[in-house]
């Protein structure tokens, strides 16, 4: 499929259009919001638990911080966590899967045994243990930890794809032209997995954002900065739901659901567009 | 006697968001009782679509845009799909597709596939009656009845194809449409399958067969009449040997001379090359569809669509043979 056709196919898919619009909207809000609303999210000098008003469109939290400012900062840092973790997991997954498939033999068996071991590990539990080892945790450290525990399924799929693609005739043609396996992997095989990799990336990002929220919720997330996960942590420790501080917990929940759902929609729609077997009719 | 099946000026198109494929463009054809009609053509000429139209197995994106499909005088194109399923398919007209693997449910034993198939048409039969019917037919056709207890994947390619044919003809349909039934098989298996088809016809289990293929040598072994298709149209129809040994349409002539069978006559003849490629059916050409590649084409061929000319027992669509414009 050529490029203009790809774009028109994607734009004709309702799930893709919905998913990408919501995601871009959240992204733009996160990127531009703090510039248009330059309130310090960590400034605690405002009155506590104030409902929305003209000065504070989403009110303030229990300790007197501006909720909108927090949310705007949180969106950006959560997306940053997701993106960073996604890149790390993608890099490890593709590398391990590709090397296993291309080298075969002992290398393959060893790498796959390792992959399966990581896959079978209770990831969240391990994350909690590792996180507990560090007293202070930067956003980058948490992203890195999420990244290095979420690649195994990707490695397995990449390996499978590589194994089937390497028997394709065009790979033989490249071998006959004297190409080596490294260049064949990079220029023949990976491009043919591009949509799959894009899908996986969307899912990895969504998963990482939720995972950050999960471990932050129990207090083992980043110890500095404002992420959606940390906002949830404060919501929970201050009993915001019971206290009826809806302006605090409701927008945060909506935003995190919107991010995760939109990314999953994008991933599903990519599968539908490029995997015609799933198309209805 | 009226023909068994009659196609009357049929146009069938695949209509999608990305455009329309003009797969069958004005085909009129009669299939008489007691004949085996071979329809030959290259890939993408619309012959498989024609097979679907013949039994009115037409559902979106395929549409019958114009024309009538008459089975013994009944207009199939006016019947709703559920009536076709209940009363026509399997009972009057049956199809054997190219890849039987997709047609046979892999999770069911052959005898259960047969039971479900028969019960669509004859719900009053009980299982034992159906099984004994199947056993009798398998024995009659010389097929191993042990195949009834196997799953489709346990059968060899040739056996699978023969089982599919036996199932398709179990209710003695008058017309059997075989769409490239042997293309995926090796020559020896192909011959066994062709023999089975011939036997069904010899014994009168089916009255007529439409055999669709790209391989003229196969048609030569089994058919009584032949129709040559090009770019969604029939270009020549006539008795088998007349068409093969004295083709009148330039395309038939070139198609036949491009066949390479291991025979001294063929080797002596030399290789004939047809320049160009068949037209894209998304944008079918005006005039004669073969004009672009035809060595004898004139301006008229490129401009006007040829009308059918009857020469003896043959029908030819070609200006050179006197096919005038409408």
């Amino acid at each position, binding site marked *: 499929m050529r490029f203009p056709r790809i774009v028109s196919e994607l734009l004709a898919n309702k799930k893709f259009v919905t998913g990408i619009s919501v995601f871009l909207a959240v992204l733009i809000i996160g990127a531009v919001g703090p510039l248009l609303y330059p309130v310090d999210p960590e400034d605690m000098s405002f009155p506590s638990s104030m409902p929305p008003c003209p000065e504070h469109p989403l009110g303030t939290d229990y300790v007197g911080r501006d909720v909108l400012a927090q949310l705007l900062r949180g969106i950006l840092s959560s997306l940053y966590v997701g993106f960073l973790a996604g890149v790390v997991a993608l890099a490890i997954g593709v590398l391990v899967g590709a090397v296993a498939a291309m080298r075969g033999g002992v290398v393959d068996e060893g790498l796959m045994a390792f992959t399966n071991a990581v896959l079978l590990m209770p990831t969240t539990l391990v994350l909690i243990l590792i996180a507990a080892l560090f007293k202070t945790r930067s956003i980058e450290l948490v992203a890195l930890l999420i990244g290095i525990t979420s690649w195994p399924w990707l490695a397995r799929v990449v390996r499978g794809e590589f194994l089937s693609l390497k028997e394709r005739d065009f790979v033989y043609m490249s071998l006959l032209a004297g*190409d080596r396996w490294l260049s064949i992997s990079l220029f023949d095989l990976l491009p043919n997995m591009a949509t799959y990799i894009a899908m996986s990336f969307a899912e990895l990002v969504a998963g990482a954002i939720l995972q950050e929220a999960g471990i932050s919720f129990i207090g083992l997330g980043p110890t500095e900065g404002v992420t959606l996960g940390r906002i949830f942590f404060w919501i929970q420790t201050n009993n915001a739901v019971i206290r009826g501080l809806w302006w605090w917990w409701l927008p945060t929940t909506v935003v995190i659901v919107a991010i995760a759902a939109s990314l999953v929609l994008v991933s599903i729609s990519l599968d539908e567009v490029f995997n015609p077997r799933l198309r209805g009719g | 006697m009226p023909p068994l099946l009659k196609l009357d000026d049929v146009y069938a198109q695949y209509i999608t968001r990305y455009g329309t494929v003009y797969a069958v463009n004005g085909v009129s054809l009669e299939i008489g009782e007691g004949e085996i009609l071979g329809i030959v053509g290259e890939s993408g000429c619309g012959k498989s679509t024609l097979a679907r139209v013949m039994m009115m197995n037409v559902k979106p994106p395929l549409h019958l845009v114009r024309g009538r499909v008459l089975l013994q005088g009944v207009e199939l194109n006016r019947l709703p799909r559920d009536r076709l399923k209940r009363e026509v398919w399997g009972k009057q007209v049956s199809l054997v597709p190219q890849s039987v693997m997709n047609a046979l449910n892999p999770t069911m034993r052959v005898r259960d596939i047969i039971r479900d198939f028969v019960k669509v048409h004859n719900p009053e039969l009980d299982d034992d009656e159906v099984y004994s019917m199947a056993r009798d037919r398998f024995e009659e056709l010389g097929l191993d009845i042990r195949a009834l207890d196997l799953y489709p994947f346990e059968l060899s390619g040739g056996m699978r194809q023969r089982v599919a044919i036996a199932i398709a003809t179990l209710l003695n349909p008058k017309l059997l449409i075989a769409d490239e039934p042997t293309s995926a098989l090796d020559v*020896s298996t192909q011959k066994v399958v062709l023999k089975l088809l011939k036997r069904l016809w010899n014994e009168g289990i089916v009255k007529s067969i439409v055999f669709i293929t790209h391989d003229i040598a196969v048609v030569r072994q089994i058919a009584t009449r032949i129709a040559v298709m090009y770019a969604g149209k029939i270009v020549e129809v006539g008795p088998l040997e007349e068409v093969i040994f004295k083709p009148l349409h330039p395309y038939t002539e070139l198609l036949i001379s491009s066949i390479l069978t291991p025979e001294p006559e063929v080797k002596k003849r030399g290789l004939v090359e047809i320049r160009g490629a068949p037209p894209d059916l998304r944008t079918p050409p005006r005039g004669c569809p073969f004009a672009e590649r035809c060595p004898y084409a004139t301006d008229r061929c490129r401009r006007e669509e040829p009308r059918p000319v009857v020469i003896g027992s043959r029908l030819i669509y070609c200006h050179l043979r006197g096919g005038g414009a409408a």
Partner: protein
Amino acid sequence: MVELPEPLLRVENLSKVFVVGLFTRRRIDAVKGVSFTIGRREIVSLVGESGSGKTTTAKIILRLEKPTSGRVLFEGRDVWRDLRSREDILWYRRSVQGVMQDPYGAFNPFYRVDRVFKQMFKLLPKDMDDEERWGLVEKALIEVGLNPRYVLGKYPHELSGGERQRVMIARALLVEPKLLIADEPVSMLDATLRSGILKLLMKLRDERGLSILFITHDMGLAYYVSDRILVMYRGELVEEGHPDELIESPRHPYTKRLISDIPLLYRKWSDI
């Protein structure tokens, strides 16, 4: 005894065993003790049905699949043991080229047709500049009957099956190989497009002195193009002979059955 000149390619006692299955390891003998030679300026056909081991044989000769035992000697050098350095491998790629069955699958759909030629440039002399190289590409395309200006810059899906197969042949010719392994090069093409490709192969033998191993399931094609026919059945070579001889008086029972089961144009089966 007269010393015969060494043939271009000598295949000796070639075998390939595939082991399949994870728990119940099953051996599949794809190729069993196959020996034959290919001389210079000769088209040799390897005929067999699917699963007969003909494609595996081709892949071993092309150095795409390792043999379990046996040797492939090209100009006296053992292709699997004597080629050690990168230079040796590139020498072999220059000398022996292949054309695959599927003109659709042989192109990576991501790239323009030009890429298959560019990939071959590393096999051309190092002192050649790009202009000379593209000049050779144009020459090769013209030789296979294609218009370079029409083909170059296009994506594979914009070309017909016949055009793509010609591009594959032009690609192989670019390095002026001595031996071309053509694995079912016309089986996916319609009859009217086949003859052009077959004619081209015969022309290359006659004009360039190219040797060709023509692999096919279709005895008719083999009968037409080859100087010699090898018949393969279940991994073994069962018969070898001149086309006319082989068709008129096959000796091995498999060949006999094969030939009697081929539908012909001028003779009708009596037993149907």
